[in-house]
């Protein structure tokens, strides 16, 4: 019975290829939209996770000022850190693997006739470890360069490209504002972040050089801390807070005038956000699938009216109500399942293409493909039921008389 209904449905679809195609177009687009959204979403989530782990493992960041939500943030008034704070964190907390100071400022970098607006970061070699940077070419700072505040610099690939083009920059002297410094190394490229900032657009110089020649003070803007492998970053975060409260003489009733951020937490927040966005887009796409279902119902109703006489014949010959119901229901489900299949093919093709254009990894998610297909078949059942019922309840006498 079901097999017969299936064959009948196939024949009916073949009879009206064009109309059937237009009918399922809504479901095709709906299914495709859901799958594309979810596939690209999981790709983006994976990328965010990967990029954040590229910032450095077990990374914490200490900044002066309390990050308040809303207006009234007081970061400007908070006392900055100095190099002793960095030493204290590195030396006094056991589970800290490394602590690196960094201060940065926007500058104009000039070489010959080329100039490029970039940012200069005063720091030390620990920074490279903590932030997962490696040297592509040349070398890192020497201890004496760091101690005496020599005018040497390491370039990010973007700055290198803008200033030197194809030339070898090692040993050349560039100008950062009033400071002339010698290029000693090139950082390995990290590319863009998910937010679109170019991580390679930077120049590193020794912290002391930065303090003396660019900032003109002894401040340290931020402290990057990496926790030892296997220790909980939460514990390290607490320890840093305690240490800094003590060093900054904050009484127990006062709030922190600094912030410690756990990058893992940020990573979790960011992936959470992308996941919510994915779910949201998927839901919107799901609504279009629903609209596609209404399209199927519409055409099935038209089809029932058109085939009233046929239904009359079947009923007169002895078809049971439920057999006619089944026939039309199966037809609707077969239609919408075809829509689902086309949608899946379309979606996978589009996802591969779009992932390439957006530079997001293509992650095949079999779960969503199966769900989308079942959902499209379900749409057929739900929206095919009403027309099928209408067909089954026809009075054979009236139906046979229908023109």
């Amino acid at each position, binding site marked *: 019975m079901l097999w017969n209904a299936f064959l009948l449905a196939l024949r009916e679809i073949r009879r009206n290829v064009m109309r059937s195609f237009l009918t399922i177009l809504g479901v095709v687009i709906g299914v495709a939209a859901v799958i594309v959204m979810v596939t690209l979403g999981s790709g983006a989530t994976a990328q965010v996770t990967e990029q954040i782990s590229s910032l450095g493992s077990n990374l914490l960041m200490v900044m002066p000022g309390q990050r308040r939500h809303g207006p009234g943030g007081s970061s400007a008034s908070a006392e900055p850190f100095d190099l002793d704070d960095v030493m204290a964190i590195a030396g006094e907390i056991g589970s800290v693997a490394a602590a690196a100071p960094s201060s940065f400022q926007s500058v104009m970098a000039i070489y010959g006739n080329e100039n490029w607006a970039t940012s200069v970061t005063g720091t030390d070699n620990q920074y490279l470890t903590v932030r997962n940077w490696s040297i592509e070419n040349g070398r890192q700072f020497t201890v004496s360069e760091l101690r005496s505040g020599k005018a040497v610099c390491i370039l990010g690939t973007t700055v290198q490209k803008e200033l030197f083009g194809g030339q070898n920059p090692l040993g050349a002297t560039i100008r950062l504002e009033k400071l002339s410094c010698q290029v000693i190394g090139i950082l390995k490229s990290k590319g863009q972040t998910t937010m679109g900032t170019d991580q390679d657009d930077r120049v590193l110089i020794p912290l002391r050089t930065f303090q003396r020649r660019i900032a003109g003070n002894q401040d340290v803007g931020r402290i990057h801390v990496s926790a030892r492998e296997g220790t909980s970053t939460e514990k390290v975060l607490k320890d840093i807070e305690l240490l800094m409260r003590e060093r900054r003489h904050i009484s127990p009733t006062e709030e922190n005038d600094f912030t410690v951020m756990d990058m893992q937490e940020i990573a979790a927040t960011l992936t959470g956000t992308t996941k919510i966005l994915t779910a949201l887009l998927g839901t919107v796409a799901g609504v279009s699938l629903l609209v596609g279902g209404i399209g199927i119902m519409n055409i099935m109703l038209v089809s029932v009216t058109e085939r009233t006489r046929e239904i009359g014949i079947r009923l007169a010959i002895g078809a*049971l109500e439920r057999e006619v119901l089944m026939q039309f229901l199966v037809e609707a489900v077969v239609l919408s399942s075809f829509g689902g299949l086309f949608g899946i093919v379309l979606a996978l093709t589009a996802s591969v293409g779009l992932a390439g254009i957006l530079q997001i990894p293509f992650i095949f998610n079999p779960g969503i493909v199966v769900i989308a297909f079942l959902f499209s078949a379900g749409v057929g059942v739900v929206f095919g039921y009403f027309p099928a019922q209408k067909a089954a309840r026809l009075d054979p006498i009236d139906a046979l008389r229908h023109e």
Partner: protein
Amino acid sequence: MNTDVSDTTADVTARPLIELKDVTKVYGQGHAAMQALRGVDLRIEEGDFVAVMGPSGSGKSTCMNILGCLDTPTAGSYLFKGVEVGKLSRSQRALLRRHYLGFVFQGYNLLNRTSALENVELPLIYRGTPTAERHGRARKALEAVGLKGWEGHTPGELSGGQQQRVAIARAIVTEPAVLLADEPTGNLDSARSREIMELLCTFNRDQGITIVMVTHESEMAAYAKRIVQFMDGLVKTDEQKGEVA
């Protein structure tokens, strides 16, 4: 459900195949009510060939719908093989049609864009006949109506006379107890009509299929063994032709 029907018939073979007792049918309600049948009594024995005649509005179509179990009487009783059809549910009546009745309509009522063979197979599909047997029986039925070689043609490719033959093949392929024909020659010229009538006579004579046929034309009614005249919702005359003449 259909077993109910045959079970009850087992011990009442003495009864006529069809028995209408004081059947009335009213359409609409209140002032708009229209009495299509006003108390029809009719008995049809197995193997009979009845022509039902009468002007339009006389109730003959209503009577046919009731005989075909497509409709139920408002009052009175319709016994089909001793079973009270008025008490059957919609699906029980569908099963009764499936197993005992065959229909031929004025407008042929074949499925469009469907081959003659598939049209004839249709009632067998609902009976659940296995595919191979279905093909065989449908081919045989088409051969019996003189359409051997036309199996693959769709109604659109057949003449009116041929379409009606397909319809007859569809009605007799299940070897029904009763064949109900509603003006089977209404759309055909007289030569084609005579061919159709001869076909019906053959099935009545050779296979013993009981036939009830509505017709306007007395020429067609002359093929029947018995002519029932309807007038204003009642049976006016009921002539047994027989071999008396």
